[in-house]
């Protein structure tokens, strides 16, 4: 029997949700097992890094890499798996765009360490110890991977063949990709997004969409939305309009506004900028006749004041992959 192609799933800075999405293939996971030798997955298997290092280059058929690049170890593993894999696929929003972890890019490394290790009310750290790549102890020098200044995406540290977006990617979409690879189907050009559409979530959302004119924003807890009407038209900040489709729009169908986990649609670099562009078109400008420029500006500001965190809302999943990428280092 010829040897089965090797499949690896690695997690860098991630939560483990992508592994859950893979396990959610349910009985189809047996088909994955039949088609591949599932040989590396720190979440589920006991293969070690040295086992990967011992493999010849390009001997892993597919590596599904989830998680962002937060530490030097993440980058080292990304480069190692790139070398050992024929196809390196970014699985999930963290690897594609940086995801929730990427919101850390709105703060400096020093601010993060201060919040986590010094100011955190549940931390008891009288010596004020913060992680350092090397620390001296009586027994010698202890080393841990360096914590980078910024969260990076997988594509920012190594070449990536394909991207499967989502937080986490819908299981049926992971299956679609696995099936396409197993069947030997012609894959799209390298760098493409797999397991998702090219349009926006609105295209898949079954809510009724009419003329959009938002007179004010509501936060999720403030209203119970009407069940059939577009959430954005009801004033909820639904990111569907600036988010790639492919998920099947489960959130808006369940009365929950889309938060944007599938990243920007095809052809868009910056999801947040896209959302600003879209909202600019549908905020209700009202009657401006006879209003001064200052009055118009004040009315816009009053309308915008009801949302406390624009960057956090518009870039919840895509900050490291966006044009500016986070807080500017000054």
């Amino acid at each position, binding site marked *: 029997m010829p040897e089965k192609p090797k499949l690896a799933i690695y997690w860098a800075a991630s939560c483990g949700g992508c592994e859950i999405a893979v396990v959610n293939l349910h009985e189809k996971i047996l088909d994955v097992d039949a088609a591949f030798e599932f040989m590396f997955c720190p979440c589920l298997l006991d293969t070690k890094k040295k086992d990967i290092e011992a493999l010849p280059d390009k001997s892993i058929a597919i590596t599904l890499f989830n998680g962002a690049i937060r530490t030097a170890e993440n980058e080292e593993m990304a480069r190692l798996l790139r070398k050992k894999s024929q196809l390196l696929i970014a699985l999930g929003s963290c690897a594609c765009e940086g995801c929730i972890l990427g919101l850390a890019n709105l703060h400096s490394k020093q601010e993060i360490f201060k919040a986590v290790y010094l100011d955190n009310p549940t931390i008891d750290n009288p010596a004020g110890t913060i992680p350092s790549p090397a620390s001296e102890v009586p027994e010698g020098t202890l080393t841990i991977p360096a914590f980078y200044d910024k969260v990076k995406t997988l594509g920012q540290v190594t070449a990536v063949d394909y991207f499967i977006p989502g937080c986490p990617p819908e299981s049926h979409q992971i299956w679609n990709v696995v099936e396409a690879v197993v069947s030997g189907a012609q894959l799209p050009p390298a760098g493409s997004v797999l397991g998702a559409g090219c349009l926006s979530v609105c295209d898949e959302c079954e809510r009724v969409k009419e003329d959009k004119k938002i007179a004010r924003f509501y936060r999720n807890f403030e209203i119970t939305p009407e069940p059939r009407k577009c959430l954005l038209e009801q004033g909820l900040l639904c990111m569907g309009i600036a988010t790639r489709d492919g998920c099947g729009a489960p959130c808006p169908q369940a009365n929950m506004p889309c938060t944007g986990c599938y990243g920007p649609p095809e052809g868009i670099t910056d999801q947040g900028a896209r959302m600003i562009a879209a909202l600019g078109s549908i905020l209700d*400008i009202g009657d401006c006749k006879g*209003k001064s420029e200052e009055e*118009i500006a004040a009315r816009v500001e009053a309308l915008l004041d009801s949302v406390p965190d624009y960057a956090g809302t518009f870039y919840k999943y895509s900050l490291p992959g966006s044009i500016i990428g986070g*807080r500017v280092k000054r």
Partner: protein
Amino acid sequence: MSATCLLNNTPDADIVAEFEPRIIGFLCNWCSYAGADKAGSSQTPYPPNVSIIKVMCTGRIDPQFVMKAFNEGADGVIVLACHPGDCHYKEGNLRAAQRHAMLIRVLEQMGIEGKRCRFDYVSAGEGEKYVQVITEMVATVKQLGKLSLID
């Protein structure tokens, strides 16, 4: 001898060239660009720091354009639109005003001062206002200093 050599040989080494910001200006075709033309044809002097990009309407300005300008080295961005009620496309200028207000909030969270991205109204006849707005903008950005986004 080239000008550079002459400069290098200047004994007054403590004379530092004043920071000259690079500013990208998005001007609407119908009002503000004509306003800039008016300033030019009336030969009013104003700082040369703004590189103008003419757009059909400020409503066409995708916030991605502004972010890209900052990311590629602009120290400031200025968007000039028709006055409210004067938009050739009815309300493109007001759409731009709304986008600008949101964009400023996001830029400030990213550590880019709101003053680096200015929105204002200049009509086709307001050559003087154009000069005033550009002069103010250049002074503001000069004071804020260079914006370097490159790691």
